[in-house]
């Protein structure tokens, strides 16, 4: 009997330790795109339940192929995001001196707005006035909604399997 008790206690301890570590070690990821879309289903056909910003951190709770079920701690509803919108690195939006120092010696941090950025593009434009960005800006404004894509698929009798 005492042996059984000790096995029981040990098992409980192991389980509790596991659960505690799980709670503490949820994998955090960061939105690495301008606009991160959270959906109700692991598919682009899933309804959009939230939109997250560049640099926002989320906790990954489940994985289904390339889709991650994420939770925004204390934030908007949970849902699915495509993994290509997520980075394992923490993205620092307004990096200070200590972040710059950390980033120099670590692969864990990304500094937003550093390196090739809007300021560099503006400087490039002032030095190369013959390079015209008008149509690049127009291209970015050519928005396509998920409804349009869905109608396009149905009208063309396509049967997409979605991202794998």
């Amino acid at each position: 009997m005492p042996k059984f008790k000790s096995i029981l206690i040990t098992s409980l301890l192991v389980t509790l330790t596991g659960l505690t570590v799980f709670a503490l070690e949820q994998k955090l990821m960061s939105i690495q795109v301008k606009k991160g879309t959270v959906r109700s289903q692991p598919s682009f056909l899933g309804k959009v339940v939230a939109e997250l910003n560049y640099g926002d951190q989320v906790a990954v709770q489940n994985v289904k192929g390339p889709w991650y079920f994420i939770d925004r701690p204390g934030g908007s509803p949970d849902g699915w995001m495509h993994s290509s919108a997520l980075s394992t690195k923490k993205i620092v939006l307004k990096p200070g001196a200590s972040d710059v120092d950390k980033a120099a010696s670590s692969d864990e941090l990304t500094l937003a707005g550093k390196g090739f950025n809007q300021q560099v593009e503006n400087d490039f434009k002032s030095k190369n006035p013959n390079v015209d960005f008008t149509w690049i800006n127009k291209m970015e404004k050519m928005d396509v909604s998920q409804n349009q894509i869905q109608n396009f698929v149905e009208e063309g009798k396509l049967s997409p399997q979605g991202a794998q």
Partner: protein
Amino acid sequence: MKRSNRREFLSQAFKYGLWSLGATPMISAILSGCEMLDNIAESGPTIELGDYTIDTKAIAKKGQSVSKTFEDFTPEQEYYIGRTVGARVLQKYPPYDNPRANQYLNVMGQMLAQASDCPETFGGYHFLIQDSDEINALAAPGGFIFVTRGILRCCPNEDAVAAVLAHEIGHVQYKHGLQSIKQSRITSALTSLAIDSAKEYGDADLAKLTETFEESISDISQKLIVNGYSRSFEYQADVSAISITKRAGYNPYGLVDMLNQMKIQLKPDRQDFAKTHPSPDSRLAEIQAYIGKNSVVTSPPTRQSRFKAALGSI
């Protein structure tokens, strides 16, 4: 570890409940280990950036990996590179201002991007027709994709247009553009991240960074417009085109239709595409192993009629 392998590993980890057993720190260590880059040499060179001189040896002494490759450009930086490369590409061929045709291409392109391995980029995918008889299609980093009227005339059906767009999405997905940037510029651009904590770069740093930016844009533009990618990059993009079009529900033989038409239309005096791409015949031979059994593209009437309506008079 490649992105897909990492994803598979994570998926398996969840499946077998590894995380709930408290194995997360271990998994995390393995995953970050996969992303580690080669350590720089102990006696690294110094890099001069404006008023600053960076001793890479000193950085190496911090005991971490700081060697930089094209993969270290953030999606945000890739986006800025792509915008300017796109503007350069538009200097070669002007835009074709036809809202209906461009809209058709953008809806199709977004649908195809969603079927790719990299559906989300920092600023998203965008497609534009260029007003040129030359047969050409180009992708700037981050998802700015250009196709000429000339290449669209090689497409007898929508499935063939989809193959052209999917091939370019393949180039974006594999970051072929960024891989054209010379290593010295990558080192200079990415090491500069360590020098300044102010919100904006000072004049000297900015001038140096813009110079590196211009050189990087020039490396990519030169590769896209003048020299062309290696054959292996082109074949890799063709394999992507087959995989993406299949997933999207198209007949992958749209690519074969397009290449056969291109063979007929490529003229000796229009050397641009022929100079920058392997011949249609060698591409046709190369894709045989991936494309599956022979098939004839038969677009449903609704698909063919919208294709004619949008691009019939291209």
